[in-house]
């Protein structure tokens, strides 16, 4: 593995073995509403950013710390988690999720994070969103610090990251990657162990 390479991992459905937002929604009794918005987004009926803002509004009444605790419990792929821990200087999570929700999970994984951001109100509830991450931004930023950027992801919202990357790995460990992601990748793998073995050779 070349030392001056950055590895950027999508979080939902790549590092985590399930999508984070539906888990939060189910825990809070909002599965149907969130699921509806997710489906509309997948079908391209509303843009990702609008969908994300609406989903955050639905979850805004919930205590942020409660959500962070739920997210911390989301199962992660053990091989990928080990890789992140062993190469933390080179690994980054790139996620559209909110910093305040994923902080505990990110701390557990031990690598740096690029995410959307929000303010927590004094009563512990979610305040306004301060930024929604476009996944191309961190790749461009890391390019200044590393010789190469390798990205790993599976969903439509990972496309901006794949378009900027030197090497793209479409990951199908949780569900089949979007066709467009495959068509913009160099490699496709379907298991966490295989992914890590590949990354070690790059």
């Amino acid at each position, binding site marked *: 593995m070349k030392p001056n390479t950055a590895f950027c991992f999508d979080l939902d459905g790549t590092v985590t073995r399930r999508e984070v937002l539906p888990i939060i929604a189910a825990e809070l009794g909002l599965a149907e509403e969130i699921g509806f918005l997710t489906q509309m987004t997948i079908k391209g009926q509303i843009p990702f950013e609008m969908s994300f803002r609406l989903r955050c509004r639905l979850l805004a009444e919930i205590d942020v710390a409660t959500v962070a605790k739920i997210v911390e419990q989301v199962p992660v792929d053990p091989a990928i988690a080990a890789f992140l821990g062993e190469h933390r200087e080179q690994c980054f999570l790139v996620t559209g999720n909110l910093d305040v929700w994923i902080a505990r999970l990110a701390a557990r994984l031990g690598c740096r994070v690029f995410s959307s951001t929000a303010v927590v109100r004094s009563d512990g509830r979610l305040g306004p969103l301060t930024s929604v991450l476009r996944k191309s931004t961190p790749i461009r930023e890391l390019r200044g610090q590393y010789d190469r950027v390798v990205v790993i992801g599976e969903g439509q919202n990972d496309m901006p990251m794949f378009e900027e990357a030197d090497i793209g790995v479409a990951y199908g460990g949780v569900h089949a990657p979007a066709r467009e992601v495959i068509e913009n990748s160099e*490699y*496709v*793998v*379907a298991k966490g162990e295989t992914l890590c073995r590949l990354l070690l050779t790059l």
Partner: protein
Amino acid sequence: MQTVAHAVIAAAGLGSRLGLGRPKCLVEVAGKPILEYQFDLLAQVPDVRLVVGYMEHEVIDTAFQLRRDITIVRNPAFRTTTTQQSYWLGGLHIEEPCLYLDGDIIFERRTFQTFLSCAEANAPLIGITEAKTEQAVFVAAEPDPRTGFLAVTGFSRTDRSLWEWANIACLPAGLLKENGGDVFTRLSRHLPLRAQPVECFEVDTEADLELAKAYVTRLHGAGTQVAAA
């Protein structure tokens, strides 16, 4: 005995000479896609890389159903590149010897395993087989008393000989090149090459496919082990 840890299967091509409208690795012989025979033979090889191009989504879906821990390598320029480009892409970043094979061949298990066991870390090993396909690349080979193996002294599309290139080789890292021509042309630069015969049937044309089917059926009938038997 050298244990080969990496295998690259070239399965990006159009298969236009066969004309079945699907990639040759998915063509069924005795009820199973050729890819399944190959994965069975490579069960002990931990890192199997499948290079895809033509109808890639179909190949990827079938490949992951058959073996989940493989790595897919994409060759989007498959229409304009040779097999060497697929091999080069598949072996890129691997710094150990690697087994290269075409994804349209049925290999007989015993001679395949013997071939693997003859592979050495730093010397290329070339697979040859009894000449029989319609578009054979003939191989001139003679016994080399120094190594105890056959030595390849030349490849030719026109000079007929007993042997043809079997489209399987175990090669050290860095031997194949990007945007090179035919694999055998590249190998010609390293003559003489150590060779090991394998029994196999490559499926390039409809006549080849019939030969392969007859071969598998015959071996099943005789109780001999074919790749996936």
